[in-house]
């Protein structure tokens, strides 16, 4: 196993996130069993106070998860010099079976925590906390994921054994069987680009329709998730090629390097935020039927949808600009 400060820090984050979410879900279990909004008992009062603690803990977990996501990719990137055949983070994540699942779990926990916090925000505005059971049910789903993330990440880092010159026996060429960074296969650029822009059009159209009629909500949520997936595929399939101006370099992580103006941050952060907002807006929208949320939901949903549309808009505009700016000719 490697011990680097970043790995120590990542373990620290994963432990504290799993710890806080488990603590929160312990309280959540009690709330699910004993919650009775009509009761004025001391227990109910205590439970209501606990809800503040849970939302604070979840807010912390969301921030920590974002930090850990960034740090994880950066660490994989910086470790690439340690492994024969790994040119960047893709190679390092491919070293054992736990690299990419850990990354995906981090992304999943990030989105779920964001949805939870936004649900909580809407719920707190309803006088009778109508979403309490849904919220704490969701929390019980997040908790095992954070534990799984901790386990996967530990397994991943434990499985990293770097190839270095050993001082006496010099086993130099044991690395041939090392899994070489399998660059993700590129799609044919034309259909990929077509799909990317059709998806862009769809998201914006559904988003605008959603702003008028709330029943488009679930479709918008699905659209945002799909849009996120398509965006990632597009980044790997052709967008990265345009940025690197190299028809064979598909890495989605090298975009974060200073050598490419760290353009990855300007792409990924709005994309992640937009997906989180859009997903939450779509999930929240159906609750406008609940009496106490009748007035709250439309305003909240409109705000979130605008934020999502702005994020996606920024992402698509920046992508188009990157394609136009590039000297690479992919569609000849």
């Amino acid at each position, binding site marked *: 196993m490697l011990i680097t400060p*970043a790995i*120590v*820090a990542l373990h620290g984050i994963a432990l504290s996130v799993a710890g806080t979410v488990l603590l929160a879900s312990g309280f959540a279990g009690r709330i699910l069993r004993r919650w009775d909004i009509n009761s004025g008992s001391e227990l109910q009062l205590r439970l209501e106070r606990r809800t503040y603690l849970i939302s*604070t803990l979840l807010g912390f977990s969301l921030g920590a998860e974002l*930090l850990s996501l960034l*740090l994880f990719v950066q660490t994989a990137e910086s470790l690439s010099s340690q492994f024969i055949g790994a040119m960047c983070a893709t190679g390092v994540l491919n070293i054992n079976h736990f690299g990419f699942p850990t990354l995906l779990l981090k992304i999943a926990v990030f989105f779920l925590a964001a949805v939870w916090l936004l649900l909580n925000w809407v719920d707190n505005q309803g006088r009778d906390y109508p979403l309490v059971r849904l919220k704490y049910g969701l929390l019980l789903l997040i908790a095992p994921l954070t534990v799984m993330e901790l386990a996967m990440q530990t397994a991943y880092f434990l499985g990293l054994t770097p190839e270095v*010159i050993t001082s006496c026996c010099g086993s130099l060429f044991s690395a041939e069987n090392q899994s070489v960074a399998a660059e993700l296969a590129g799609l044919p650029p034309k259909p990929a680009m077509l799909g990317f822009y059709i998806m862009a059009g769809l998201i914006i159209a559904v988003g605008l329709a959603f702003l008028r009629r709330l029943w488009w909500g679930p479709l918008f949520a699905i659209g945002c998730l799909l849009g996120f997936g398509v965006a990632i595929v597009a980044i790997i399939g052709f967008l990265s090629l345009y940025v690197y101006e190299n028809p064979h370099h598909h890495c989605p992580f090298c975009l974060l390097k200073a050598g490419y103006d760290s353009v990855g941050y300007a792409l990924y952060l709005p994309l992640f935020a937009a997906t989180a907002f859009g997903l939450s807006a779509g999930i929240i929208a159906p609750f406008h039927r609940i009496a106490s949320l009748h007035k709250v939901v439309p305003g909240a949903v409109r705000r979130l949808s605008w934020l999502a549309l702005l994020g996606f808009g920024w992402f698509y505009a920046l992508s188009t600009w990157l394609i136009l700016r590039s000297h690479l000719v992919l569609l000849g």
Partner: protein
Amino acid sequence: MSTFLERQKYLIDYTLSALRRRKARNLGLLLVYTLLVFLFSSVLLLSQGLRREAAALLQDAPDVIVQRLIAGRHDLLPAAWLEPLRRIRGVGAVHGRLWGYYYDPVVKANYTVMVAPERGLATHDILIGATLARIRQLGIGDYFSLPAATGQALPLKVVGILDSASELLSADLLLLSEAGYRSLFNPPPNTFTDAVLTVRNPREARTVAEKIALALPGSRPILRAEMLRTYDAVFNWREGMVFVTLSAVLLAFVILAWDQAAGLSAEEQREIGILKAIGWETGDILRMKLWEGALLSLTAFLTGYVLAYWQVFYGGARLFAPVLKGWAVLYPDFRLTPAVDVQQVLALLAVTVLPYIVATLIPIWRAATTDPDAVMRG
């Protein structure tokens, strides 16, 4: 959105004045917090700087070094090996190197002695590194004699001192002619210490190394990439170990932060009670307390980081240098190139700010959910 921002502005405003009211207590915490960030960032900045320096130096290292091994130990390489190496496809220039270490009992240090054919030195001429010149108090034109392997003293004339810009490489270096080297160490004729080769296409270095291992079974080819990897691993490990050691300090800090946040003074409790009585909600108090933590963290983080930056890059990095740099009598005197790295800042945030937040979350919540009447009555 603007009401949200206004609200946060007022909260920050209130928090700042509340912090000012309890100056001594908060300054104490701030001091410890800053010191913690300073310690961790010093380690990170220093090792990052050293790693970068090593990588920059190794950029000029040969593509492949070939050594000869006998019974697993490094041995002298016969000159007859150079020809088969030259014949390997893809190999550019090949030449044998003569170098070694010389223990000088006068300064109780090892010199690196190396033959530099490109300098055109006469048999008794030498060039020496700046640190060595300083320690032996030598200048150009001075004579310097070393006992040779045959037992006789070998007089050497200093004809130049190596540029101090390359001090990291040349601190303990002594360059001389092949004839001088052979009379100093008396090695068997037609042998070299090792051989270096250039590879025309650097991406083929690995294949070339495989061919060498196949053609000369007793050889040990070392790639530049492997040297870089080893340096990286060494610094990563040292850095990681210092971090693990410092975790005890971190734990102490977490306990302090928890204690500070949990032990509200009577005055603070009354303050929260009054705020709630005049209409503040639990959420507002929570937000105010979180702002308090955020402001403290930001101040401590920035101050600690800037201090560490100054200490490492301009103050000589006295603090962790012996652990991270390694140690030697003839240690080069060099200055690191300042640089800030995103990963480093993220890791620092994760090991300093995050534990502080974790430690204060529950106490903050406890404070925010206190009943106003309970506090006022108590």
